[in-house]
């Protein structure tokens, strides 16, 4: 491990037509660290994730990945250098089977572009996909079309597809949203273990405080586009401001959330 943080964000600012969606955001994430992001609806969590992965361009500020500036990078280039993400609403290929989904992900993750012209179902790729399916408990769903999967399984597939390229930084947008409560922990156990094994740093947006408490090393609390607390979970979750603005019942109107979220674009 080096001293350079895998993610370094400085003075990040984003506004939509005069409405501030992110302001003065400064974050460092170290290799292999697991960081939770919490905040009420419209607090700017997803905007932050979208900016880091290149879906949105910040109005001002700096984003560095492993010492290299990636501000305003295109999503596909972000993926290329090792910044991947999953989505609040699973982004998978609905009409394709689980295996095909993973095969496409695996083939695109390969460095050799010429191999893209070879048959998708090559033995080598299928083997790798089988390994991934085994890791993420997807083997039994192998030949099912993604559209027929339950939310939880689809979410797993979504995450599995995001990590096939073995990213150094992974951003998960509400990995447990829409997942039934008895699937939740199993899912998170699987994912966090698998990612720890790979040494991937993880940032994830989460509403469920139990999940946050159990899996993260550090929590960022967002409120009205700003980080109001950045500390380990037991500190953050006891912070009075966090309790008032994030954990309390008050879901204050923020920026129009729909306009900014990938899943709705």
């Amino acid at each position, binding site marked *: 491990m080096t001293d350079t943080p895998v993610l370094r964000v400085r003075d990040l600012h984003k506004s939509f037509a005069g409405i501030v969606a992110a302001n003065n955001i400064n974050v460092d994430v170290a290799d292999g660290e697991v960081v939770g992001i919490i905040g009420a609806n419209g607090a700017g969590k997803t905007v932050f994730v979208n900016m880091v*992965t290149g879906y949105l361009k910040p109005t001002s500020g700096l984003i560095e990945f492993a010492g290299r500036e990636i501000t305003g990078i*295109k*999503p*596909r*280039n972000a*993926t*290329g250098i090792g910044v*991947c*993400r999953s*989505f609040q609403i699973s*982004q*998978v*290929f*609905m*009409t*394709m089977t689980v295996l*095909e989904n993973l*095969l*496409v*992900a695996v*083939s*695109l*993750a390969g460095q050799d572009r010429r*191999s*893209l*012209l*070879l*048959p*998708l*179902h090559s033995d080598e790729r299928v083997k790798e996909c089988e390994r991934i399916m085994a890791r993420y408990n997807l083997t039994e769903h192998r030949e099912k079309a993604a559209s027929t999967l339950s939310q939880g399984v689809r979410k797993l597939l979504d995450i599995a*597809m*995001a990590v096939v*390229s073995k990213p150094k930084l992974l951003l998960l947008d509400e990995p447990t949203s829409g997942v039934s409560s008895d699937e939740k922990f199993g899912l998170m156990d699987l994912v966090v273990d698998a990612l720890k094994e790979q040494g991937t740093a993880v940032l994830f947006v989460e509403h469920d405080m139990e999940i946050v408490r159990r899996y993260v090393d550090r929590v960022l609390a967002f409120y009205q586009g700003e980080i109001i607390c950045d500390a380990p979970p037991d500190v953050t979750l006891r912070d009075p401001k966090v309790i008032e603005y994030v954990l309390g019942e008050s879901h204050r109107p923020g920026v129009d959330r729909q306009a900014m979220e*990938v899943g709705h*674009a």
Partner: protein
Amino acid sequence: MIRSVFSDKTILWAFVGFAILSLIGTLLPNWVLNNAMFGLARGLAVLGLLLMWRTGLISFGHALYFGLGAYAVAMLEKFTGTTDIFLRLLAALIVAGGVGFVIGLVLRHYRGIFFAMLSLAFSMVLYGVLVKTEALGSTDGFSVSQTTFLGWRPSSKYPLFLSIIAICLLATIGVQLYLRSALGHLTTSVRDNEIRVEYLGYSVARAVHVKYVISCALAGVAGALIAMALGQVDPDSMVNWTVSGELVFITIMSGPGSVVAPFIGAITFEFLRTFAFEWAPHAWQLIVGGTLLGIIFFLPEGLWSLIRRLWTKKERRRDRYTSSAGARSA
């Protein structure tokens, strides 16, 4: 390599089918041969549209490339006197592929109705130029002389028929291999979820562009082959929007199921039109239009689904008979 290619059932099938077609071609009367040639050539353009359709895009302007291919043949003859099949095809390929590449730079950012309309607009620009320019034949178009093969001028249509079959077979194999490849699977991927493709690190625009250029080149070659088989090019039956509509129609009629479906669909269409025109000259459009509606309502996966249904039914029946012999997993 060859073995692995022919291990693909579709390719093997296409090979067998085209081989049989080329054999019975010697027995067929000329008018059947002609219709088969038109059908096969048009099927080539439909094959390109199939590629686009699988990507979730429908072009209402592929007559542009169809016409460019046909006119490339005619203009090549007019200005250089060349009638050689290889040069004709090369010219069509270069012109259609080249224009497709340039227009693709714009079109690759468009989806849905906008893609359809912009491709329509581009094709109508060419139509507008052709019908009003005397040097380009205006509404008359040009006659196209008989095709020569490296200086040899055959006395029958059969060599051209064989060449068309060979080209269709090559294209079928090529497109099938492409669809099986990782890049080829990006058709469905792009249709299903562009965001995911981008986040997997591949440029959706580029994926669309590549497929567009392939389909343009196929349409161009198709136009060139029709021009050669027919001996005539003109804007109304090669470039007008109705031609694009017809190509899309055959695509839907064929169904997206297989790379051989376009040829089956296009040949069916050609005969449907010939007979409808002969039996009911004032109602052949009605028959064609009615067929289109019928397919949309009752056969949404096209003719191919019909063939596959017959096929699987038989297979199932046989499976029932043979299942006692051993365990055969689904």
